[in-house]
């Protein structure tokens, strides 16, 4: 009897709780949540809070920083001799002028007059010689450098009080673009604490960092150019699962790389800005393993996968379908038509599979890094599409470090879904990795014509001719169906409606120097 009474009470309590929770949730949704967010108090002191998921758990030394997340922040603190503008043009930065010798092998840089480091010291020709030698690996101090593409530099010499000559082993039309990354930043010579307290020449200067908590930078008042509009920026390291809560609470004013679901939750309160991520998401196939060593099978996979459906499902339609290892923002190298080379056609796919001797399909594993929901989800959609042609794809989620060491480094995989980008504004950054003997050729792509075209392209000094050669390489990747290319995703950024001036670049950086608070809300 007593037991019956207890369970009765339990039921009543449980029901009451459920009902009240539902009521709360329902009632709240229709009220304050939909109103645009106000400008926070810190707007008055010209400060900004930005949420980032990935901590700068890297060396802060720009020459050593590899992770995209660190480079994204470094763009605000460091500059090379030249830098990229939002249009993708290479413009002067630390150097105010560059002269190239007629044969294209000697570049003479004139250092900008009056330019200073964050520590107040003037930038000298010695600093430039030191910086470029160091990031090109010419200093014999045994350290690695992140800029693997500067190996064409033979010597760096001071040729005048404020001029520096850089000599290349052979002419290279892409050379300036290589110098335009923070991996080739100009830093003071003889400064020891670059890894923990970095000093550069950018519009913001480093203030402090606390691991897994924040990274703070302030406006650099003596910047040579227009300079930052904000006085202080604090990056808060917040797990992406807590972004929506942090945006809704007003703790952060700007947050990039949101997923479609997250955007849906904050779109009423925040301005959503979007631009492509400048990366190539694809089902990357290990061209060296059965059955992907057969071009017919690879092409069959291309026909069997509906790109648009993947984009709709994973990104709510926010993506641009692509057909080779090049993204649309890279205007002159991008070939739009390749996206439609293999239009979705299940019959054709089956026919190709039969031709290749896999009429009954086959099984393979798609290994995806679990920290990228957009790649995991794309893998899942792809797997279900492949069922229709009789192919069973099993999804295996692995941790990022495991992916890097097993899949990327060990090349021990069938297929994987990831996105590749480039740290330099060059076509080589996207295409060189698939040359047959390249260390980063994860998919073991091996095509003699492709290799030959690449050699020809880098040696080429005529920009138009070079562009044409790179385009031919993209065609080969598409025709050979090296990978099943899917899309360049949209990067969606939630911005407080009282902010203005966010500009996108054709590479993976977030420029905060142009961002400013305004009096009026964009909502």
């Amino acid at each position, binding site marked *: 009897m007593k037991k019956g009474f207890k369970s009765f009470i339990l039921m009543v*309590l449980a029901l009451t709780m459920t009902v009240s929770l539902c009521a*709360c949730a329902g009632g709240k949704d229709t009220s304050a949540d939909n109103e645009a967010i106000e400008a926070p108090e810190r707007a008055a002191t010209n400060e900004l809070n930005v949420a980032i998921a990935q901590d700068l758990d890297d*060396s802060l030394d720009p020459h050593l920083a590899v992770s995209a997340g660190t480079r994204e922040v470094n763009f605000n603190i460091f500059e090379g001799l030249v830098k990229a503008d939002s249009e993708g043009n290479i413009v002067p930065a630390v150097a105010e002028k560059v002269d190239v010798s007629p044969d294209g092998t000697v570049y003479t840089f004139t250092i900008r007059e009056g330019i200073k480091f964050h520590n107040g010291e003037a930038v000298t020709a010695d600093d430039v010689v030191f910086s470029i030698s160091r990031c090109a690996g010419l200093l014999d101090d045994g350290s690695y450098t992140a800029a693997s593409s500067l190996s064409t530099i033979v010597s760096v010499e001071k040729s005048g009080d404020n001029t520096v000559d850089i000599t290349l082993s052979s002419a290279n039309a892409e050379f300036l673009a290589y110098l335009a990354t923070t991996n080739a930043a100009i830093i003071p010579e003889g400064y020891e604490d670059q890894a923990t307290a970095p000093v550069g020449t950018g519009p913001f200067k480093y203030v402090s960092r606390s691991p897994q908590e924040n990274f703070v930078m302030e406006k650099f008042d003596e910047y040579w150019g227009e300079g930052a509009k904000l006085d202080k920026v604090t990056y808060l390291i917040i*797990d992406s699962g*807590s972004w929506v809560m942090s945006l809704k*609470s007003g*703790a952060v004013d700007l947050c990039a790389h949101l997923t479609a679901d997250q955007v849906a939750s904050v779109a009423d309160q925040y301005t959503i800005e979007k631009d492509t991520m400048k990366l190539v998401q694809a089902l990357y196939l290990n061209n060296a393993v059965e059955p992907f060593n057969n071009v017919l099978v690879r092409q069959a996979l291309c026909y069997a996968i509906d790109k648009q459906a993947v984009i709709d499902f994973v990104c709510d339609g926010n993506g641009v379908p692509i057909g080779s290892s090049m993204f649309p923002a890279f205007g002159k190298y991008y070939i739009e038509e390749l996206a439609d080379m293999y239009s979705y056609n299940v019959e054709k796919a089956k026919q190709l599979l039969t031709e290749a001797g896999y009429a009954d399909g086959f099984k393979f594993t798609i290994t995806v890094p679990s920290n990228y929901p957009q790649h995991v989800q794309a893998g899942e959609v792809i797997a279900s599409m492949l069922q229709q042609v009789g192919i069973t794809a099993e999804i295996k989620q692995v941790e990022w*470090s495991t992916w890097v060491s097993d899949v990327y480094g060990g090349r021990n995989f069938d297929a994987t879904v990831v996105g590749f980008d480039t740290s330099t504004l060059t076509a080589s950054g996207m295409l060189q990795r698939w040359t047959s003997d390249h260390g*980063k050729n994860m998919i073991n792509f091996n095509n003699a014509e492709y290799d030959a075209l690449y050699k020809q392209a880098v040696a080429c000094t005529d920009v138009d001719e070079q562009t044409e050669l790179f385009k031919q390489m993209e065609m080969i990747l598409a025709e050979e169906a090296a990978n099943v290319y899917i899309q360049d995703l949209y990067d969606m950024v939630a911005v407080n409606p009282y902010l203005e001036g966010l500009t996108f670049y054709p590479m993976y950086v977030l420029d905060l120097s142009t961002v400013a608070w305004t009096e009026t809300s964009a909502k």
Partner: protein
Amino acid sequence: MKYYIKKIITLIITLFAVSLLAFWAFQVIPGDAATHILGTEATPERLEALREQMGLNRPFLVQYFDWLKDFLFGDMGTSYSYHMSVKEMIGAKLPITGALSLMSFLMIVIVSIPLGMWQGKHAGELPDVAAGVLGQITMSFPPFFLGMIFTLVFGLWLNLFTQGQFISYTENFSGFLGYLFFPALAIALPKIAMATKLLRSSVLVELQQDYVRTARSRGRKFNSVLVKHVLRNALIPVVTFYATTLADIVAGSIIIEQVFSVPGIGRLLLSSIMNRDFPVVQAIVVMMAALVVIVNFITDLLYQFIDPRIKVQ
């Protein structure tokens, strides 16, 4: 005396074993600090060069004893990912997780002791039944879920704290404690329910004892007997629970720190595992193991204090 020596030897052996196991785990799982640092910029040659530079290509035991030697001399090394001194990094995080854990622990003790006694005294009455049911429900919520509910209810709806805007203890100490209140409560709540239930039944058993009747027959008030005699006896089994709870709290804080974006030891540990940053992981793991062993040791001493009949040996 013999007892203390034995305890200290156990502590040393445990820490040694734990550190060796943690170190070994890093050898077994795929990827190392070098692959993590280079990421997709890795080529076999560059990996080799970086490993050489970091000393990662030395034999496992050489690396371990090298680390051990430095550690014993108080040098925890430098973080592979942050290039900062591990001692400094952990030193800055320790007050955060320490405050969070302590707050949680105090909540558990302060609420569960009176509540358990009160429930024991009123066992079977309606408020006790209701509290029991509520406790049962609370117990079944995992802390991370409670954490999410708290951020929604107390953070977003009631605006009692700003989710994501952690306030550092160096900036504003009361603000810091204020931010930690809800994370601490999320960890504490299920434990409060468990401790209360345990104490309630322990009190019920003790109330049946002869000494209670004797004390009552000598004219002592019921409440006074409850507090002066029953509680002391009833606490013995509960103290063990509190002790194990302390270890659970520290473990629970690892997850709660993620939910509330609290930059403490837990977040540092998790990210360091992801980064294969073993100097940091080793230091934290050894610290946590030491904590558990020491807490157990203190528990033994507490028994003796509560019930002098028990002798540690």
